[in-house]
């Protein structure tokens, strides 16, 4: 059963953004894609404040979160989401260029749902995004609470 809640993509690099959007488009998902360009904007969306004060209520189906971000970085966003009892059920997938073990360890410590090192090979990247989109946006049953909220 398809979950039609939007996908929140947090990415500051315009090329990565364009490529990721292209990959998501290839997956032909029905979900809206909401784009935040830094960690602060991502938190604004999640908490429905500032520019997003008027948005439709409800959690995104999945957050695709870049690790290195201006203002509030990816790990910080992850920490805020996972330490908030009202947010922590939102699936967060870390997308990163980094192959650094410590980033991976830290992400899992903070409760990340998946960690993807963006492969150089675009086809491999496309496959990874497709798998993620399928899993989190289509196959993943949202927890009961978010359904009630929606």
């Amino acid at each position, binding site marked *: 059963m398809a979950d039609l809640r939007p996908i929140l993509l947090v990415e500051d690099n315009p090329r*990565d953004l364009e*490529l990721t959007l292209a990959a998501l488009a290839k997956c032909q998902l029905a979900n809206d894609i909401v784009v935040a360009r830094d960690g602060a904007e991502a938190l604004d969306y999640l908490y429905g404040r500032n520019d997003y004060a008027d948005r439709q209520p409800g959690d995104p189906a999945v957050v695709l979160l870049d690790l290195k971000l201006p203002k509030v970085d990816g790990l910080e966003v992850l920490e805020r989401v996972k330490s908030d009892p009202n947010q922590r059920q939102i699936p967060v997938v870390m997308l990163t*260029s*980094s*192959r650094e073990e410590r980033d991976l360890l830290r992400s899992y410590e903070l409760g990340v749902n998946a960690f993807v090192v*963006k*492969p*150089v*090979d*675009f086809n491999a990247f496309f496959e990874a995004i497709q798998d993620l989109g399928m899993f989190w946006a289509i196959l993943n049953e949202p927890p009961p609470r978010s359904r009630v909220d929606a």
Partner: protein
Amino acid sequence: MNDIGHDTSLDLDACAAEPIRIPGGIQPHGALLVVAPDTLEVLQASANLAAMTGLTVKAGDPLETAAPMLAGEIRRWANTDGYSLLRTLPVGERTFQVTGHRTSQGLIVEFEPPPPAGSESLDALYPRLGQFLDAVAGAKDVAGIAEIAVREVRELSGFNRVLLYSFDAKGDGTVLAESSDGVLPSYLHLRFPAADIPAQARELYKLSRTRLIPTADYEPELIEPPLSPVDGRPLDLSLAALRSVSPVHLQYMRNMGTGSSMSVSILVEGELWGLVSGHSREPRHVTAQIRTACDILGQILSLQIEAREQARRTADRLALKQVETELVGRLSAAASYQVGLASHAGLWKRIAGGAGAAVVSDQSVIAVGSTPSDDDIRWLAARLQEAALSEIALDSMAEVWPEAERFAAQASGLLAVSVSQLHSNYVMWFRPEVIRTVEWAGEPQKPQERGDRLHPRRSFQLWKQQVRLRATPWTSVEFESARSFRTSIQDFVLRRAEERAELTNRLVEINKELESFSYSISHDLRAPFRHVVGYAELLADRSADKLDETARHYLNSITEAALSAGRLVDDLLNFSQLGRAGLNAGRVDVEKLVAEVRRTMAPDLIGRRIDWRIGPLPAAWADGAMLRQVMQNLLHNAVKYTAPRDTAVIEISGEDRPDATAYTIRDNGVGFDPTYAHKLFGVFQRLHRSEEFEGTGIGLALVRRVVDRHGGTVTANGVPNEGATFTFTLPKRPPRPDTETQELG
């Protein structure tokens, strides 16, 4: 022939027992009286007092009554601060030279016959002393001073022969200068053993600077009563000019053929440096005035010699300090002080004037110049350590350690300072044996005993001795220089330790910087390659039908180039992470690991015919993840470079050695020129053109880094077109019974 022994126990001990300060009598050429300092009551007197002076007093009599004028003179002196009295006074019907000094047993007053008419008075002697002072001040060195002194003393005293001898550290005296009229034999440059002057006499020479024996053939005049009424003890005659000397000494004089003698002490820095001694064959009296003049002369000598020796020491000290400063300056550039010393051997030896030098650090030895063997140097260090000696200066090691004779020719003298309180670390200097002939005035080693009476030696015939196993002695300045150098070495070590700590901190800093550098590379350098590939793929997707074959080839090339650059970044990051990651060592089942690696390589093996020959492989003690990378790289290479073969043969074998496990990967591939084997393991080193065999040139560098980190070794052998063989070893686990075996891999 023996080395100079100083077995003085027999004569010295016996002489030390001689009560030389309290002989109970005086020499008969004068008379002695002891009076109470306040009442001038007569306490003691020599038996000849009445006969010589006409004073008929006995113990208890007031001197005032018997000799009012003398008593007045004594009282006047006693009331002043003057320590001693020297006057020419009428006593009874005759005139005497009266001298007095204070003791706890009363005022000791001595009477000697007056100088013969026409002899020089003390006043007349002053200009002479002034001239003497000028002469010695102009003398070139101590030997020159000694020359002038003996001539002057002989002229003043009229003795047949006047000698000046100085004592060495062991107390042996060497005659430095002699003035003689030829009546007595010459002793110039001869040596007198320490035992000739017993310790007690030496002490007395320091207290009382002149001593006269006008005749060696005399019967002492006894002191009466023998015990002092003040304290009930025999009268202490230490400072009395008339003190009767030991019969042993009189016998010594007679053996020497001298009928009279006088000595003047030369004290330098409070120690008995030497003596001026005059002898005549016949009895000879020297007036108190002349004796006083000789005493002043002795003091001038003392001061002059002291000044000369100090000046020489200061000059030596300055010269050695310059050597030290220069050497320490050069050491500061050296990796360690040991290395620095070895490369500045000349300066190092000069620090203490050694012919050779060595530094012992625990068991390692660095030696320069003439030294014992390294083993013997270690042996010496062990002796010093054993004796807990932090410094030592020996001119004859064989005297202390008889075994040291074996290297005496290279090193008889040793000067050593310890440079560590914790370890057996010494800096040593050596001096070779100097075989010398010493001319003794008689054989020193045979004190004679006759009957129950101590008897001094009788022969003063020249007796030559060859001194062996002995080096030129170390001077106090050299010893000081070595000590000061020790401090410099300790400072050096301390400073190095601080520098090392600072360097470690700095390295930690740099390592952190490097880490954040590679962290940002991993993010920022990978991204553009990913973008290039991404856009090229998007373009290919979108315009595939519009592109001709050439354009598609260009697009493919763009993608491939970016992909390979991306792989390069990944490999480099992997390599740098390896250097930083901690070793997580455990027991690794290598057979299982090889099987897994082969499985992951399956896609590369499609279309290939490979004959795998895998022998039994012993388990390794290693970080499993790292070892996997090693195997991956070596097997990947074997597969890659056998590609041209119809059937590739890849052989993997293991060997269980006593201290390590070894693994060998052999292939029948294109091999390599062994001339370049050493380049194989460097980063970015490739021995094949990239279009022949693709690769980043990092694989073998990574292999080596992992093996190095495990403390193992890796070697490569190749024959062009026949194949390559790689062998690496991993040390076995150090025995640590408290850690449980961990299964990894």
